[in-house]
């Protein structure tokens, strides 16, 4: 049986020839993402914005009647509601701000949500209630802080691990790759204005773990080759390492990709944003492990000597004694 080979044997693609333009592109992507977040802002869901959020599914219709819903809920006197598609065309999330002091009255917030649901089901009897969430401003603020803290802690911890297992340059390279992956993913949410919720932060945390897998495979091979080919110029060695591991980089990304795509298409609408984030993060992570994690090593001065054990004072004295120093 002839087996499938997605990547031919012994590829010799000069990835690093374009390292400068691609690195510039990466920087543009990072800063562009930050700009997008600053200009557009993130479309926070109820987790981070606080307030009352109702989710409903209009299974009998092709698309949820969003403009009508906006008008209907807007007429209830809770200010302008945020009505948007949620994961699929039939599902909507409706968010209204909570009036001051609602927290101190048990049930007042949900009563608002219940009223929104009752108003909608009166007009659209086929609408299905999926959820009714209250998040106070205080808890929403805590979620925001926790999210930022968790993302920074995870990035730092993973980079630290890479540093310990390899060398400091590799840790820094991994850190840059992660900043890149996280920034671009968040930037995409700022650009598309898809709802940014706890689930999306969870997705990004998962990306922090998985996007490094490719980087680790390449780094592992770089280390191996550094020991093997002591005389090879660094960028040539990087190209060799990336080429040698290209088949597995492609395959590991592809297996995760083919598993995720059905979930994106057929899966529950409420998971769409999360799965989309992971899928995008997967591609960005593969790209960054080739074009960010690699070239950075050259610029930080990794050489074949990086993995030679450092000379201890005793070694030095012995050397001098032998007259080699």
């Amino acid at each position, binding site marked *: 049986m002839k087996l*499938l080979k997605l990547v031919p044997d012994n590829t010799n693609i000069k990835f690093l020839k374009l390292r400068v333009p691609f690195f510039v592109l990466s920087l543009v992507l990072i800063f562009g993402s930050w700009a997008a977040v600053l200009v557009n802002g993130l479309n926070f869901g109820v987790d981070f914005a606080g307030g009352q959020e109702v989710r409903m599914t209009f299974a009998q219709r092709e698309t949820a009647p969003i403009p009508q819903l906006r008008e209907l809920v807007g007429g209830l006197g809770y200010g302008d509601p945020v009505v948007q598609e949620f994961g699929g065309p039939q599902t909507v999330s409706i968010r209204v701000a909570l009036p001051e002091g609602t927290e101190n009255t048990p*049930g007042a917030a*949900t009563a608002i949500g219940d009223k929104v649901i009752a108003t909608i089901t009166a007009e659209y009897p086929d609408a299905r209630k999926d959820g009714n969430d209250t998040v106070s401003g205080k808890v929403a603020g805590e979620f925001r802080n926790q999210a930022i803290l968790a993302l920074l802690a995870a990035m730092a911890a993973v980079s630290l*691990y890479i540093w310990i297992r390899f060398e400091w340059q590799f840790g820094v390279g991994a850190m840059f790759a992660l900043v890149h992956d996280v920034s671009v993913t968040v930037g995409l949410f700022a650009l598309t204005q898809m709802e940014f919720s706890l689930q999306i932060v969870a997705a990004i945390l*998962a990306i922090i773990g998985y996007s490094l897998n490719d980087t680790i*495979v390449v780094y592992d091979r770089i280390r191996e080759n550094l020991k093997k080919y002591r005389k090879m110029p660094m960028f040539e060695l990087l190209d060799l390492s990336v080429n*040698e591991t290209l088949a597995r980089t492609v395959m590991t990304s592809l297996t995760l990709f083919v*598993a995720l795509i*059905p979930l994106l298409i057929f899966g529950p609408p409420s*998971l769409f944003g999360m799965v989309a984030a992971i899928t995008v993060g997967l591609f960005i992570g593969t790209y960054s492990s080739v074009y960010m994690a690699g070239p950075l090593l050259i610029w930080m001065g990794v050489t074949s000597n990086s993995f030679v054990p450092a000379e201890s004072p005793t070694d030095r004295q012995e050397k001098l004694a032998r007259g080699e120093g």
Partner: protein
Amino acid sequence: MLDFPLWKKLSLWAVTLAASLLALPSLANVAGLDWPAALPNPQVNLGLDLAGGSHLLLEAKAGDVRAQRLENMEETVRQLMRNANPRIRIGDVSTADGSLSFMLESAGDIDRARGLIEPVMQGQTTVREWELNVVDGQRMVLSQTDAGIEQAIDDAMDSATEVVRRRIDELGTREPTIIRQGNTRIVVQVPGLQDPDALKDLLGQTAQLEFKLVDLNALPSNVQAGIAPPGSEIFPFAGGTAEQGAAIAVRRLGGIRGDNLTGAQAGVDPQNNRSVVNIAFDAQGGAKFAKLTTENVGKPFAIILDGEVLSAPNIDEPIVGGRAQISGSFTPETANNLAISLRSGALPVPLAIVEERTVGPDLGADSIRKGLLAMGIGSLAVIALMVATYGRFGIYATVALVFNVLMLLGLMALGGFTLTLPGIAGFVITIGAAVDANVLINERIREERARGRKVIASVETGYKEASRAIWDANLTNVISGVALFAFGSGPVKGFAVVLVIGIVTSVFTGVTLTRMFVAGWLRKARPNDITI
């Protein structure tokens, strides 16, 4: 590396099969099949986002605990000074700024007063709860230490959690989860509960019942203006009562609290057919209540619930039986709710609802169906890709993948973990990423073969050399998984659990099991060449 003695093979199979079998009851449940009652039945719990239900996050108002402690201390100190022999006269008592301060009329009493107060400053624990200072030779200041407040809040939260549990149990809802979270919070999850209003009414009621004497000397005009006479305080009448909107002045100290109840039942007053709550005191509470009513026959006292006056009846005769009736403007429902709250004890601190989520019942079933469909298609795609690319080695990886999913599900059932909606995504990610180990190994074997190594040597080197990167990659995933777990609330924690257990099972099945399969085949077939 490729040597598998019989005991090793048997134990690997035993672990694999045992963990996989644990998944069967959960699978039967999803498929709607009956699981034989005679067999053990570990099930994966479904999170609220899949099962439907209500989630409440309650937060205690810590400031109330401080104020309460201060008031208790004031009462204790007054009593100690009054009962001292000879009596120690004090004046200018103030509880401003979170500390209790008072003047001794005679500076000579300082040491005696100190001797009396010091024993009550120490609580049951070793923590220093109060600090006593003497200012200007005659003024004593008792302030709460931070450690003391912390301890008090901690105690209050422990008993609040217990009270919440008792109240929810009274509602008869099934399998509620009530967990204390952090310093001042309690998480309540009730699967299947769609209308949490009754629950919230119950939890919103502190049920702090107090009986205090009405201050008959207060000028009505001052009371309505909110000016309390010295030693008194003003409470509003509860909504729905005849005097609603009015207020009443009561003596601040000397009343009793409804903490010592043995029972509370909703009932009907036969005289006027109105709903009432009948309460029964324990011995200690009954004695206090008898004393209060005996000493004040003919005077009115106010029945105060959570800072609102329910009614202010006259004490017609001493009540010594330890039983009393609370009248107010109750409906049968509110009387019943109050009875439940009183039975389960007062909340030592009021709780506010800071987060609430209700998930509809149909969403979860819909999500599981769609999630399973997507998982099925995804698995087939991964399997097809692996078999087409690595042939026999892909088949081994596939078998390992099936065991991986079963073991993951089985271990979740065994550990009593909760499957949430993001957890479904976690399953799919695990399926897609579990074969990564096999990809790394198989690609390495290909490479070694291409370099001209013999079959056995190639396979050995493949497993050995790939395991380093597999180890590093999975450990970084575990690190991010731990961050996920620490960060997340329920659903996200469920995601983290699946990812982390999935990493463990996938390394076991993807590396160890496949190596056993490959070794067995190599030993039997002794191939000169392999297709990979």
